[in-house]
């Protein structure tokens, strides 16, 4: 009896198809190998997230204070100078949506968490949240074990190099080839050598700083404002339910930056902060945005970021606030 031919079978492939498959394997093998090597090199990079993750794992039982926010918070809060055991999980472009994912995702691992330091910069409430496929979600997954994707995890989500190949390839070149990185992280992932910004380039000369051009996003958007404000309330409700005290903070800005803020955006943000403080007994404000007494040009990296000197001062002010917390 003749054997019926199977529908899917390797013998169905013709000679030319098999030759082509071989050709493809030959071509793509170096590409795949290169990807694997780069992924391993990325995992070996000294990067702030890695230190954050290590800190999170090794000190989870002691941590009492967690800082969340964008690069402004990353540069302003050095847990090394905090009076309580602290961690700063802030990072560049991190918005409240990511902050909330991190807070919820790490809450069970941090039984002693008492304080949440949350940044609300002048335009925080009028900047749109990142989409669910934001590249840093892979970073949070890898280092904090936090799923911020709002869906189940796929294999590619676990690959750092694929999440932002441009960022990581630049980091790889800086670290392994040019040795040009100036970053020096302490055990908390804070860059203690973070002085190399615009103000240093301008020799901290105020006349040059006053005429320096910089970028500021001062666009108004009422629909985003409403959405983000609701989201902030949701976060505060969660913190209240979890018995966490929230320190809503605004971070120091240089006077040229302060002048360029959109007054309507600032007014709306401030009114939300006042309302929140009245409504929640577990919320206090640390408003240092316009603090030009404690902070001068030598404390700034650029117009809206502090350098490690400024961070030391800001952390000291934070300590005062925490110690005075009722």
């Amino acid at each position, binding site marked *: 009896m003749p054997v019926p031919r199977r529908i899917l079978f390797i013998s169905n492939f013709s000679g030319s198809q098999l030759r*082509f498959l071989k050709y493809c394997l030959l071509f793509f093998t*170096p*590409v795949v190998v290169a990807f694997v090597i780069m992924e391993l090199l990325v995992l070996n990079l000294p990067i702030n997230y890695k230190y954050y993750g290590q800190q999170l794992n090794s000190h989870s039982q002691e941590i009492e204070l967690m800082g969340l926010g964008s690069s402004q918070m990353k540069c302003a809060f050095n847990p090394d100078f905090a009076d309580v055991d602290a961690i700063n999980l802030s990072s560049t472009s991190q918005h409240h949506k990511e902050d909330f994912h991190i807070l919820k995702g790490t809450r069970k691992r941090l039984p002693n968490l008492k304080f949440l330091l949350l940044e609300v910069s002048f335009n925080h409430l009028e900047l749109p949240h990142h989409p669910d496929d934001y590249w840093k979600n892979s970073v949070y997954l890898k280092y904090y074990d936090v799923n911020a994707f709002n869906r189940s995890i796929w294999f590619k989500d676990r690959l750092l190099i694929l999440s932002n190949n441009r960022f990581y390839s630049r980091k790889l070149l800086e670290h392994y080839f040019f040795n040009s990185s100036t970053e020096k992280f302490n055990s908390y992932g804070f860059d203690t050598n973070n002085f190399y910004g615009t103000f240093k380039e301008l020799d901290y000369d105020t006349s040059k700083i006053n005429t320096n*051009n910089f970028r500021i*996003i001062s*666009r108004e958007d009422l629909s985003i404002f409403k959405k983000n404000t609701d989201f902030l309330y949701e976060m505060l409700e969660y913190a209240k339910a979890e018995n966490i005290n929230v320190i809503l903070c605004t971070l120091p800005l240089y006077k040229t930056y302060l002048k360029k803020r959109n007054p309507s955006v600032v007014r709306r943000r401030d009114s939300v902060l006042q309302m929140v403080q009245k409504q929640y007994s577990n919320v206090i404000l640390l408003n240092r945005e316009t603090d030009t007494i404690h902070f001068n040009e030598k404390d700034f990296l650029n117009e809206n970021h502090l350098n490690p000197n400024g961070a030391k001062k800001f952390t000291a002010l934070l300590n005062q606030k925490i110690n005075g917390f009722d």
Partner: protein
Amino acid sequence: MFLPITLVLYWAIGYKRIKAQNALLLVASYLFYGLWDWRFLFLIVASSLVDYIAALAIKGSEEKIKKKLYLYGSILWNLGVLFLFKYFNFFIDEFSLLFNLKDGEYAFTTLNIILPVGLSFYTFQTMSYTIDVYKSRIPPTRNLLNFLCFVSFFPQLVAGPIEKAADLLPQFNTRRKFNAQEVKEGLRQILWGLFKKMVIADNAARIVNMVYASHEEYGSFSLLYASVLFFFQIYGDFSGYSDIAIGTAKLFGFRLNKNFNLPYLAKSVTDFWQRWHITLTRWFTDYVYFPIIQKNLRSGTRRNIAVFITMGLIGLWHGADWTFVVFGAFQGFLIILERTPISQNRKSSLYHRSRIPSLLFPVFSFIFITISCILFRSQNIEEAGIILKRIFLLIPSSEWSSLISKTFLVCAAILLSVEISTRTKNFPLTRIDLYISRPFRWVIYYIFILLIFRYAGPTEDFIYFQF
């Protein structure tokens, strides 16, 4: 992994089993489409069935009135679906605004629905099938599987090229024999498409999004620069997608129509639309423009009206907003202007055969493309007005230098020089094996992979997916 798995299974089935191959393609296409939102699948199946049945009914009817009835029924369904999902809220909003019915007892309510991905593309494809059957240009197919495949063929389902049934449908009836040369061509075209999308479009998008998000804060030159970059963004994005779609189809043994032909070299607006989204222009020419002028080819007024309506609809096809309506009207106005004789010589027209030196063509194209880009990119007509006003007010742009990205400029230069130097070919890497030996070819491919890997911009959705 979706593509390699589908491809290996497809060829493992063997080219003699067309039905099994088509069934696999259908499953893969529906899976691909369902990954966005499985609910959209009901709509695509319903649209396919309506046109499948309508075409058979047209063929089966003897009376012309019945044929017409079936045709109009099908068109009504297609346009109704399009209107409901894409234009309903826009028209309700504008109607409410016009009659001041935004609030109060007689206020209209808008629908809270999302636009299914690629709706405009597959609706036009199915509509053209029924019209062609009605016009007896093609016979209707009785093979439902093949027809469903034709509507949902995944490489071109969500953003074209818009294929006519006469071109694509017969390919599902014939055996697709594995041709290693064609498959390699497909892979090369995908590589070129990825370069355009990930390196050119996504990097341009980074700057464009930044500037357009706070356009009030940027000076004239920055806004002009961002608007020109938007052309690179949308060209890289859409032509890149078309290349990926055409290349992917080649992997499965299908041929799709070319959708772009160096639009930045256009000498006129008419020429531009013969180079940009070619399959859409062809669709509107065949199914809107020609039917309007069919009996009055010589009437200039009728032709101008036809041009204006056609271009207005092309504008509206892109989205439910006044910016797109004005965009279409602007194109129509310029085409009419081009066709208007500037002397007694009837052959003379503004740009086609004018006395304007050819050196000025790029200047004209630049101005026309930039204004079109501003209309296309702006969120609303007010924003477009503000941007145009700020450009013409010559506001200083001290921040311009911060927008310059050397990487992007180098990559854009590579794109333009490679495309222009190989302009007679379908795409730059086509038949590269005829004149470059394998080691050097591989070096070129690896360089492109490296460029994509190293310089890909932040991931942006394909712009035309929203249409």
